């Protein structure tokens, strides 16, 4: 960035430099940096796991950096807790809302610091409502401060969150994917508010995956990848392709594509599947020996399709055939008995019982096969079979008695894979198989998946990382807003072709 461009900007509100942060098993940030000027919107972009959230948590005092400096208004500061960050004028609007539904808008905004009256014995509700009304007026929104937050739409709840952040006189606002639950009109309204805030000299960090939004509101784009700062690009003159290649980092990922061909034998056939609003009229087939990629934006309904097939969520209508036979799957148990496995993106909550050992996790779906008289566990056999799979999948663990919470992300994922292989599942649905996994371990997981396909397993890979989908898939199904919008050949598909299908319906609505 040239010095001339720098001088056109307002004063520097916040600057973080050389930030390092490590968690057990993962180095989350390495020499990360970001700088925000007054009246500027900085879009923070990067793939899942790039370290965006971790960096923001350091700026808001949730995490402490292992190294590096943060300065606010040119002065170095330490941010030991969120309260200190708030006092320095750093506000954050989380992707998930943290509001108390039964309290009013004003009560939510001033929670924990209510204005008092009568020697501090009572809350001064009138003043609180008046103050909240002032903030809403500044944002040009007409929310009644006395309305219960639970009665507002999600979009308006988000506005209450923004009002809350502004009530701290925040100079710096961090917005984490604020539009993920908003429709077009609501997004336009939010952007108008952001423009007003910019004019008032507020600096904004805007985390998003959506390129069109970045083009509309951002001044600069900061790109992160694998916990590192990559580049700052001017939003006005940067193309989508440039952003994507900076985010993806072609030098790090082996993009060579997989593979032979899947067989012609159909393992799973889904016809007219409907489940709630997130899954509408979904049709696809999955062959043996094939990796079928599921691409799409967050909330496109890919996870919901997987959970419906697996029996984790109820199905409204539709037909599912497994190896040519129509089946009725009412629970995960039914699915498992048909050889279908679902490997959740959220391994810690849905994939593993983290407080139990590697042995118990690998064998859990198969426990009933490892009893004497159906009552007592044959622990020695459990141990030896678990050991066999640990060696086969190269799980790094001192013993099979190690609690799984102590393993790294990649090794946890291997444990989850092992448990389904031991259960003889031959239809494997992977939801974000490499989320939270180091780049080195990623390559290993890729190899594992390809090996499984070569053995004849039928595999679905749901992934938000396009290079991952392109690398692994024989065919790619793209979803948008609960529907399948297209199918691409793995060999010839491009990121652009996928993104076009993934945003198709959004653009059609414009």
């Amino acid at each position: 960035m040239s010095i001339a461009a720098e001088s056109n900007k307002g004063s520097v509100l916040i600057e973080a430099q050389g930030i390092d942060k490590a968690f057990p098993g993962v180095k989350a940030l390495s020499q990360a940096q970001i700088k925000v000027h007054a009246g500027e919107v900085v879009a923070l972009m990067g793939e899942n796991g790039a370290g965006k959230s971790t960096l923001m948590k350091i700026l808001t005092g949730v995490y402490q950096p292992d190294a590096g400096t943060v300065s606010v208004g040119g002065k170095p500061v330490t941010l030991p807790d969120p309260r200190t960050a708030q006092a320095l004028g750093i506000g954050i609007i989380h992707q998930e809302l943290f509001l108390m539904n039964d309290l009013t808008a004003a009560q939510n905004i001033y929670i924990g610091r209510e204005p008092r009256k009568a020697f501090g014995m009572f809350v001064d509700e009138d003043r609180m409502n008046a103050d909240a009304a002032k903030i809403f007026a500044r944002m040009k929104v007409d929310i009644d401060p006395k309305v219960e937050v639970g009665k507002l739409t999600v979009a308006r709840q988000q506005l209450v969150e923004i009002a809350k952040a502004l009530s701290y006189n925040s100079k710096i606002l961090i917005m984490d994917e604020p539009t993920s639950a908003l429709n077009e009109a609501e997004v336009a309204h939010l952007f108008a508010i952001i423009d007003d805030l910019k004019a008032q000299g507020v600096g904004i960090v805007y985390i998003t995956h959506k390129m069109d939004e970045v083009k509309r509101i951002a001044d600069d784009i900061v790109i992160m990848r694998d916990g590192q700062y990559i580049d700052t690009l001017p939003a006005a003159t940067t193309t989508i392709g440039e952003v994507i290649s900076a985010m993806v980092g072609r030098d790090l990922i082996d993009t060579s594509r997989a593979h032979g061909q899947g067989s012609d034998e159909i393992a799973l056939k889904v016809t007219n599947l409907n489940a709630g609003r997130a899954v509408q009229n979904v049709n696809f087939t999955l062959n043996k020996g094939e990796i079928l990629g599921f691409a799409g934006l967050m909330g496109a309904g890919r996870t919901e399709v997987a959970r419906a097939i697996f029996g984790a969520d109820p199905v409204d209508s539709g037909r599912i055939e497994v190896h040519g036979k129509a089946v009725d799957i009412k629970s995960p148990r039914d699915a498992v008995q048909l050889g279908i496995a679902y490997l959740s993106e959220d391994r810690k909550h849905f994939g593993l019982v983290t407080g139990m050992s590697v042995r118990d996790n690998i064998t859990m779906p198969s426990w009933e096969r490892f009893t004497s008289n159906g009552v007592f566990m044959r622990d020695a056999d459990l141990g030896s079979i678990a050991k066999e799979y640990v060696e086969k999948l190269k799980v790094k663990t001192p013993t099979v008695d190690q609690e799984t919470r102590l393993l790294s992300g990649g090794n946890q994922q291997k444990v989850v894979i092992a448990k389904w292989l031991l259960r003889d599942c031959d239809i494997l649905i992977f939801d974000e198989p490499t989320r939270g996994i180091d780049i080195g371990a990623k390559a290993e997981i890729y190899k594992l998946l390809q090996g499984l396909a070569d053995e004849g397993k039928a595999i679905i890979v749901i992934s938000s990382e396009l290079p991952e989908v392109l690398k692994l898939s024989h065919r790619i199904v793209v979803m948008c807003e609960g529907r399948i919008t297209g199918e691409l050949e793995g060999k010839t598909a491009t990121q652009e072709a996928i993104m076009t299908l993934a945003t198709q319906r959004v653009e059609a609505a414009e």
Partner: protein
Amino acid sequence: MTDTTQEAPTNKVITSSFLQKAVAFVVLIILLAFFSIFAPNFAAWSNMVNIMQATAVNGVLGVAVTFVIISGGIDLSVGTMMTLTAVISGLILTNLGMPLPVGIAGAIAFGGFMGSLSGVAVAKLKIPPFIATLGMMQIARGLALVFSGAKPIYFNSTPNYGLLSPESSISLLIPGLEMPNSVFIMFGVAILASIVLNRSILGRYIFALGSNEEAARLSGVVVDKWKIITYGISGMICGVAGLLVSSRLNSAQPALGLGYELDAIAAVVIGGTSLAGGRGTVMGTIIGAFIMSVLTNGLRVMGVQEEWKIVVTGLIIIVAVYIDIVLRKQS
């Protein structure tokens, strides 16, 4: 390519649950030593026998609750369920005049049936365990009063009944050793429960449910079934406690039972089982029950007003859970 995977820490044999059980055991030893020094005659063998006998009912009820708590639930109904099963055995033996084994089996089976009803409420109706078993606590209490006509049932037609618990059958084998059967029954129940929890597939599922129910469900575990069985087993063990208490009193006292559930939960917590589920041991619970009865007995022998025991028990519960929190943070 960088591999930042850390060297995984070496296997920890000493789990927090084991540690706290060890802590509870040390506390028990300290209490025994303290009272032996400061309370005259505390250490007499006859007094030790008193303590063990006084522990039996609470220990057995504690084992019942341990199952449910490890599975991630809670059972408030164990006290009144004990009373209800005692009344049932009274009805079978005294009112119907059936033989003793039928009475014993009937009480245990009925406890299992009522417990599994709690399980159905929790698993199928999705009622929080606290509420479901609070309801069951009142249902069992009411039924005990209704079935008995609110009057004690005496075991007049079964003269051996009153000997079940207090008699020292061991003396027949080892002359000179005086130890009531109730103590052996408690240890028998505890050992059996330990084996079930640690060795059986049910036990494995109980730990899995308490650690992460959703992950277990997504692994194909039929969560509802195992939950119902867990509460059913708790009810059956309450049936054993019902036999112990009614045999010692030689009567089924329908007004008894309220408050026993809190003592049982206290024993579980003191023994190192986590109320969050997924961690715990039966032997810890037995140690917890011993700590409570040693306190009661020791303070009484020292001549301290007995009610102080309640205060001290309360303090011990808080300290025990605090130790659990500290140990959990470290690991």
